[in-house]
């Protein structure tokens, strides 16, 4: 049993925290919106009033916060993680952040005698709730080994990226990029066949019963066929946030990524056309606009 704090109780975080509690760990939870911890409190977690309160005497703090600014603030402000965690504690950062943020976070923890493990997740809230996430870990081997029992409760599999936290970030961002570019390519493919009078459904079957028989193509391809963009699983604006992180990571490492740039520009176009809150599959409509179809 470990003494664990969990900070950031959004849809993903709540499911993940429940898994830790179910695994018998001593859990303290915190969220800026205190009510987000109610359910976990009822299930046996202690609900902390402040970050400092949550971190006192913890072996591990897990954060699941939405963006760079949020995790940097929680870590570095007065009474934040760096100031409040005991020496030797591990911060497992499980959100999707930029390389620069992860580097800054790692340096701040090192200075405070703590260790950062980046462990971004692959999967949506239903997988978080059932402990079936994919997890990519990056950090010093001994720290990763220490937190592995926690990762095993939250995920079906951990992929170890390397000893630097940012190596896990790179994998997570690259995976998102591959998904985004697949959507762009599908969008282009659909606009081409539509102009030749072909039903989108027919091309969908050719793809998904052949070389592209995977979740990415079946899920987003179906959304494109049905043009059901209003139920946003992953909205354009979130895609754009990640696309900017990817471009920044590529810039830092000096990697030209021409396909990624197309994806990023199509996201910007979709926002410009008022589709920012729609599902990312709306990139197909953005491409159709470019071809004069819509």
């Amino acid at each position, binding site marked *: 049993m470990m003494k664990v704090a969990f900070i950031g109780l959004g849809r993903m975080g709540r499911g993940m925290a429940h898994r830790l509690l179910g695994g018998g760990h001593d859990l303290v939870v915190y969220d800026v919106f205190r009510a987000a911890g109610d359910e976990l409190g009822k299930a046996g977690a202690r609900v902390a009033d402040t970050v400092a309160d949550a971190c006192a005497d913890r072996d591990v703090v897990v954060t699941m916060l939405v963006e760079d600014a949020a995790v940097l603030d929680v870590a570095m402000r007065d009474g934040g993680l760096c100031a409040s965690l005991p020496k030797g504690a591990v911060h497992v950062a499980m959100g999707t952040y930029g390389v620069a943020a992860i580097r800054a976070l790692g340096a701040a923890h090192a200075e405070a005698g703590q260790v950062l493990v980046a462990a971004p997740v692959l999967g949506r809230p239903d997988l978080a709730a059932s402990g079936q996430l994919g997890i990519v870990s990056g950090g010093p081997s001994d720290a990763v080994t220490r937190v592995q029992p926690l990762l095993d409760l939250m995920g079906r599999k951990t992929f170890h990226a390397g000893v630097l936290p940012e190596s896990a970030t*790179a994998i997570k*961002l690259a*995976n998102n990029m591959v998904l985004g570019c697949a959507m762009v390519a*599908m969008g282009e493919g659909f606009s081409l066949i539509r*102009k030749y009078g072909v039903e989108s459904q*027919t091309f969908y079957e050719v793809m998904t019963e052949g070389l*592209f028989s*995977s979740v990415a193509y079946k899920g987003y391809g179906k959304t494109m066929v049905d043009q059901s963009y209003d139920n946003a699983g992953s909205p354009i604006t979130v895609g754009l946030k990640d696309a900017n992180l990817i471009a920044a990571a590529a810039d830092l*490492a000096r990697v030209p990524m021409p396909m990624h740039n197309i994806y990023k520009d199509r996201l910007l176009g979709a926002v410009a056309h008022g589709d920012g809150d729609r599902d990312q599959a709306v990139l197909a409509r953005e491409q159709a606009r470019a071809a004069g179809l819509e």
Partner: protein
Amino acid sequence: MKIGFIGLGRMGQGMGARLLASGHDLLVYNRTAGKTAELEKAGAKVASSIAGACKDRDLVITMVADDNALYEVAVGPGGVRQYLEKGAVHVSMGTHSAGAIQSVTAAHVEKGHAFVAAPVLGRPDAAASGQLVIVAAGPADALKKCEPAFAVMGRKTLEAASTPESAIAIKLANNFVLGCAIETMAEAFSLVRKYGVDPQVFYEVMTEGLFAAPAYKVYGKLMVDASYDKPGFTTKLGLKDIKLALAAAELVQVPLPSGSVVRDRLIGAIAHGDGDKDWAVLGKEQGRACGLD
């Protein structure tokens, strides 16, 4: 059925053998003699000209390599257009440009012929085992006549739309999506490599997650192993197909920015001497672009 088959490359050999094995009356022709030997041994009759291959045939199938060969065989002097019999159907099963298919269609229509485009998805092994996917388009009654032949060459036939070039659009779009997936993986691998990640780990993340599909498993593995020397499909052929997709797109005013990127990377790979390697060598070309390879 009485079938004429023109074009006995690696794909054509397998498709012809399937037709023969299922009892069709097969008459074959190839411009380069010698390629007919194997099918002849298996019981096919051999014609010495296109005219001969069209004689008394219900269907004439052409499976030729490129647009020039199609023009020559279909509409050139002594071609299928000249000798196709009344009520017979010409089925073009190669991958051609949308423009060429439009021209051949027009030429046949002028003579009152039925013409079907039916490009196939799959490699020679799928052709030999009758496991191709056939995408067909043309007049409804002509498609109906093709059914028995399609049934033994493919595991599935999909109908595109009413014009023959609509079948071509699907075939080219599918190859285009594959080209994009290959270039995308190449970029992603180069990014993770720069952050010290073993490509195999990223391969597992992709193929055990959102991308558990042949395109990613096969081409991703070739990139992980940097194994480009036994080409299933070469860089040069990849460039040919992407250019066909871009041309088909231009014909109907569809910008394909991803296609343009793939085309340029393929040209770069050829410039670096990788034209005859597997087109997964885009992994290396992207590695070069960021100073890794």
